[in-house]
C-alpha cells in the first residue's frame, strides 16, 4: 500500500488540519453489496454531453492549501474560476494556461490572465522557479505526456497541486471486471473514444511516480460519496477523486 503519506514535521499543521467531513466507508464485507450487484448487473447509459465537472471541492481545498500573495500557475485553467477565487481570497499573482479560446475569453472577463496554448509542448518558455505553486486540476490524465508535465510542474514551481480521477476506485474496478469494458461512472461518463482522459491512472500509480521522482507529498485529500477527507492508505480503492500537494525535494 502507499509508502509515503505525509507526516512531515516541516508542514504547517494548520495546512493539514482536518476541516473536512470524516466519513470512512464501512468494512469491505458489508460494503454496499447491493450496489456492487447493481453495477455488475446493469450497464449504465454512457453520457453524450459533457457534464459540468463539479470541481468545487477541489477549488475549496486548493484555496486552503495556497498561502496569500504567492505566484500561482494554473495549467488547463478552463474559464478561470479557480484563479479568480485565488486572486480574490488569497491575493495571489495568477497566470493560467488554457487551450480553448472561449474559455480564455470567459477567464478574461473575470479578470484572470490566461495564455492560450497547448500544454503538449511542455512549459519550456517558463524559466525555473517562475511560480510558487503550479496547479494541475483534473488535467494530467488528459495530456499526451503526463510525465513530461509533472517534471515541468516541479521545475517551474516549487510546489505542485495535482488532482485526478482515481481509476482504481471500487466502482470503476467493479464496472470493469463485471462488464469487461472501459468503466462508466457518474464521474467518468464517456465512451473510451470520446473521453478527454487519454491517460487514466490510479492513486497508487501516482504514488509510484512520486517515489521515482524528486518529489514528496506534503498533503493529500480524497473525495468519495460527496465527502472530502485527508488521504489514507486505503484510498486507492476508496477515493473517487484525489488531490495531492507535492513538493520538489
Amino acid at each position, binding site marked *: 500500500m502507499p509508502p509515503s503519506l505525509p507526516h512531515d514535521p516541516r508542514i504547517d499543521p494548520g495546512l493539514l488540519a482536518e476541516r473536512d467531513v470524516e466519513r470512512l466507508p464501512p468494512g469491505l464485507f458489508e460494503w454496499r453489496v447491493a450496489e456492487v450487484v447493481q453495477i455488475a448487473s446493469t450497464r449504465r447509459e454512457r453520457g453524450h454531453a459533457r457534464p459540468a465537472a463539479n470541481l468545487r471541492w477541489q477549488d475549496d481545498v486548493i484555496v486552503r492549501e495556497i498561502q496569500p500573495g504567492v505566484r500561482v500557475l494554473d495549467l488547463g485553467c478552463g474559464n478561470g474560476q479557480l484563479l479568480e477565487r485565488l486572486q480574490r481570497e488569497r491575493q495571489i499573482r495568477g*497566470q493560467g494556461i488554457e487551450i480553448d479560446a472561449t474559455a*480564455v*475569453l470567459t477567464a*478574461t472577463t473575470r*479578470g484572470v*490572465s*490566461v495564455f492560450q496554448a497547448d500544454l503538449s509542448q511542455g512549459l519550456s518558455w517558463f524559466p525555473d522557479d517562475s511560480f510558487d505553486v503550479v496547479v494541475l486540476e483534473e488535467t494530467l490524465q488528459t495530456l499526451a505526456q503526463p510525465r513530461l508535465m509533472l517534471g515541468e510542474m516541479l521545475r517551474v514551481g516549487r510546489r505542485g497541486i495535482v488532482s485526478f480521477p482515481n481509476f482504481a476506485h471500487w466502482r470503476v474496478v467493479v464496472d470493469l471486471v463485471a462488464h469487461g469494458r472501459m468503466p462508466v461512472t457518474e464521474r467518468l461518463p464517456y465512451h473510451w473514444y470520446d473521453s478527454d482522459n487519454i491517460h487514466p491512472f490510479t492513486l497508487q500509480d501516482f504514488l509510484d511516480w512520486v517515489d521515482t521522482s524528486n518529489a514528496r507529498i506534503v498533503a493529500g485529500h480524497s473525495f468519495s460519496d460527496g465527502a472530502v477527507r485527508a488521504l489514507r492508505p486505503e484510498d486507492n480503492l476508496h477515493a473517487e477523486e484525489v488531490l495531492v500537494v507535492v513538493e520538489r525535494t
Partner: protein
Amino acid sequence: MIVEAHGSHSPRPLGVSDPALKEGSVGWTRPKTIRLVSAETPMTLELGGRIGPVDVEYETYGVLSEARDNVVFVAHALSGDAHAAGWDREAQGAGRPWRATSPGWWDFMIGPGKAIDTTKYFVICPNVLGSCYGTTGPSSPDPTTGTPYGLRFPKVTIGDWVDLHARLLDALGIERLWAVVGGSVGGQQALEMALRFPDRVARAVVMSASTRLSAQGLSFNAVGRTCILADPNFAGGDYYGGKLPASGLASARMLAHITYLADGDMHEKLGRRLQAGTSGPGEGFGNEFAVEGYLDQQGRSFVERFDANSYLYVTRAMDYYDASVWGGGDVTEACRRMKARMLILSFASDWLCPPESCRALALALIKSGGKVTYANVPSQDGHDSFLFASEMTERMVSGFLSF
C-alpha cells in the same frame, strides 16, 4: 473583410436619421489640434533629425475623470487617423469627404456601452508624426522655406511617435494611462509606450502586432515604396501643387491591401468572377476579374485620402521598429521593463503578422514575469481582422479593460 471603399458614395443627408445620434455612437466629433513642439525648441528625433514646430491632431471621446485616471489611449495603424469613432460633421469643409459616409475607423469598438466604453473611459486618439491627417508631416510647410517639406522631412520612428504622444499626455495633464490599445502598427505603438514609459501605462492591448516586421513584411513595404519612387510624377517628393504620384501610391496600396486580407475571404467574396460589363476573357490587360476592379478601387480611393511622402515615412518607421532594442536584442529582457498588464490578440487568418509572431511576443512577456493574456481569435479577415466587429475581440478587450 471586403468592404466598400471610402469616398464611393455621396454624403448621406443629415437630419433625424443622423447616424451620429444612433445608440452606441460617440456622436459628432471635432478634431483638435495642439502645438506640442515650438519652432524655437525643436524636438530631437531618434535618428538624429530635428523637427519644429510640431502640431498634433487628436480626438477625444468620453469624459476625463477628476483624478485623470480613466484614459484609454488608442493608437492608429499605418493609414489611420485621429478620427477613431463617431461622425465628423466638418468632413466636407475640411477636405475629408470620405468621412461623410463612414464613421471613425474603430467605431464598433469605441462608444457608449461598447468594448472601449466612453461612459467609463476618456479616449484619446492622435494622428502620428509624419502622417497627413493634421499632425505635422512631409506635406506640412517647412518653416525655413515656407513650402512643404517633402523628402526634407526628417526620418521618424515609432519611438518618436510615442515620445510625441507622451508630450500630448503631458499637455493634457494626464500622468498615467488606464490603457493603451492598438492594432498592427498601432499595436506596436502600444507596445512601445509600455516599454518606453513603464510607469505611465497600466494596461496595454496589442493586436495583430509583433516586436518587429519579418523579412517578408519589410519586402512588402519596400515594393510599395518602389512603386511610389518610380512614379514619374513623384519629382523627388516635391509634387505638391502639381501632378500627384497617384499611380505609384495606388499601386503601393493595392499591394499592401492584398497583405491585409486573407485569401479565403477574397476567394469567397470575389473569387475568379469577371467584372460586371466584361464580356469574357481576352479583353486585355485592364480590370477583367472582379478582384482587379476591387483592388483598383482600393488604390484610387487611397490616393484621394493619403499622401505619397507620408506613405514613405510611415512605412519606414514600421521597418525600423524593433522592440528588442530595450533588451539589447533580447525581447524577454526588453519585456522586463514593462509594468503593464498585457493583452495580446492574434487573428487566425493573419499571414502578414501571423499568430506565431504575436504568440512569440506573448511568450517573451510571460517569460519576463509579466501578466499576460494571449488568445488567437478565429477570423477570416486576415491582418485587418482587428478593424472588423467580432464578438470575441470586443469581449476580450472590454473584459481586459475592466480589471
